């Protein structure tokens, strides 16, 4: 683009517009420098203030939840903001065993594990073929997949419920896995198609000339090369599937098949669990901590994975 790189009168020309930072700054007249410095200082205080306020607003509810999970029910209602009178770990153990949090965790791990593997396998297979091979219908199939990104899932849910019912897939983990895979394919195919296009063709061609079949070339040459892309899109899908609420709410209503998010919501609303607020908070924090911990550890990859599709 064109920028305003004309030199200001009275200021020594910085030479080429692409000149490095330091030389440019040194040429600014003293008065101008002083003025912008004070502007910078005020701005610095202001921006730190605003940023800290938002940071507190983000962290407070989470800390509050952690604190509340260690309180007695009485303390939760009488003094919501005071520190707990002791660390009531029994809330946690009660939530884990009696409130079925352990079951919800296990169900979620099974469903997300299965669908993540399936999503990456099927997504990369379809994306590879669409990115690398020319055949009639290629564009059509590609746009068929991509179109799924902009449709509201809720519209398909009503008929989907009956499709699942007819196939006896309602309230089964494998049914949920298949649906998760299907609804993860649009973004996965979109992302991986672009990714496979950027990989060099020469390696795959060499492998093929050496006598490897297309299938073998894909699994032994292309997939290892696509690892960074698979990790990005894998993290994206992991978070999406782990946090999924709408699909299991409709397709998975059996008590002992529930996944984490819907199990927690059910605990909060169910009659049977009424009164045990501390246990509920313990369950809530239990569900929050693993993803937060994973995020802090793999922070770079998570951000890269989540923003990869949106930044050009």
């Amino acid at each position: 683009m064109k920028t305003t790189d004309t030199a200001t009168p009275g200021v020594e020309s910085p030479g080429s517009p692409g000149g490095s930072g330091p030389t440019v700054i040194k040429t600014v007249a003293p008065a101008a420098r002083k003025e912008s410095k004070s502007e910078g200082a005020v701005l610095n205080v202001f921006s730190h203030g605003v940023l800290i306020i938002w940071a507190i607003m983000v962290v407070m509810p989470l800390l509050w939840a952690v604190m509340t999970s260690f309180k007695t029910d009485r303390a939760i209602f009488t003094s919501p903001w005071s520190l707990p009178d002791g660390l009531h770990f029994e809330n946690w153990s009660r939530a884990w065993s009696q409130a079925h949090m352990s079951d919800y965790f296990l169900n979620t791990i099974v469903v997300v594990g299965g669908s993540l593997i399936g999503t990456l396998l099927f997504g990369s297979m379809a994306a590879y073929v669409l990115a690398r091979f020319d055949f009639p219908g290629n564009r059509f199939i590609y746009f068929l997949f991509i179109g799924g990104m902009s449709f509201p899932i809720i519209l398909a849910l009503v008929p989907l419920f009956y499709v699942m019912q007819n196939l006896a897939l309602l309230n089964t983990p494998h049914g949920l896995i298949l649906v998760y895979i299907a609804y993860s394919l649009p973004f996965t195919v979109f992302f991986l198609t672009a990714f496979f296009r950027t990989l060099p063709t020469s390696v795959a061609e060499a492998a093929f000339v050496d006598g490897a079949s297309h299938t073998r070339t894909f699994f032994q040459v292309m997939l290892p090369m696509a690892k960074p892309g698979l990790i990005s899109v894998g993290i994206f899908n992991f978070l999406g599937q782990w946090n999924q609420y709408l699909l299991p709410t409709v397709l998975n209503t059996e008590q002992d098949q529930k996944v984490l998010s819907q199990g927690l919501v059910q605990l909060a609303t169910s009659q049977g669990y009424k009164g045990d607020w501390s246990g509920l908070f313990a369950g809530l924090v239990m569900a929050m901590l693993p993803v937060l911990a994973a995020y802090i550890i793999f922070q770079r990859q998570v951000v890269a994975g989540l923003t990869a599709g949106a930044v050009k």
Partner: protein
Amino acid sequence: MQHGKYRFIVGFLAAPLALYALFVIWPFIQSIYYSLTDWTGLSPEFGFVGFDNYSRMLDDEIFWKSLQHSLTLAVVLPLVTVGLALFFAFMLNVGGRRRRGAAIAGVRGSAFYKIVYFFPQVLSIAIVALLFQFAYNPNSGAINSALQLVGLGSIQPDWLGDPDLALLCVMAVLVWSTVGFFVVLFSAGMASIPRDFYEAALLDGANRFTTFFKITLPLLWDTVQSGWIYMGILALGAESFAVVQIMTVGPNGGGPDYSTVVLPLYVYQKAFRDGQAAYATTIGVALLLVTLAFAAIVMKLGRRERLEF
């Protein structure tokens, strides 16, 4: 590379395409067809009724309410979220004290802020909604108790129970949980803008606000626009469903006097609570049209000359 090419293509596309067609494409096509029938969803029999469901929908007061709420979300949420995120991202990347030799600088600790702001994004929207349902509790929730602590005990709103406030409370939660994602997204975009542009502008005497509107925003426009659409789709779809369904209970769900009912929630209620599957898909088709119209309008309004750098 011709040998066995078509067999390979078919073999690799068959499974993904079959799954996708069975669980995504086919239900979408079916739902448009069902919207023209009187299917209850409970029994396999149904008859073709033409556009009866559509004319019924136009007379349905709750449909109009949910449409109005969904449209409000689709307009207000992107405006607030994208605006706040741009503001924060600009602060993070340009708002810092000028260090020796650099024309612009991010604030100290900007990496830390980005990590913290992103927290809500990795949490399940269901968990976020539950958490805030407790926080909004009028009697012993965190927010009213905090008001009391700072001496504003006389102001004790009923938050989710107040028809005038409930939708605002829902929106606040959605903003809270999504701003961080856009801050990180826009920061990445801003970081890729060459520094010389800022240096040249500052030399010409431009202040930070001018540089934001003349340099940062135009160069970030593509990202802002896709963020805008993403946020709108989210506000019309699954996220708003989860927040409203979990947070605002009310006698019928959707808050006191239907004050927070949104289109996806209304579809869900009609289909799985009231046994009116055909009518539910009709509302779903309306939701689809609203979503597509929204995306089209944003793209049309946002079309500008693409800037390359």
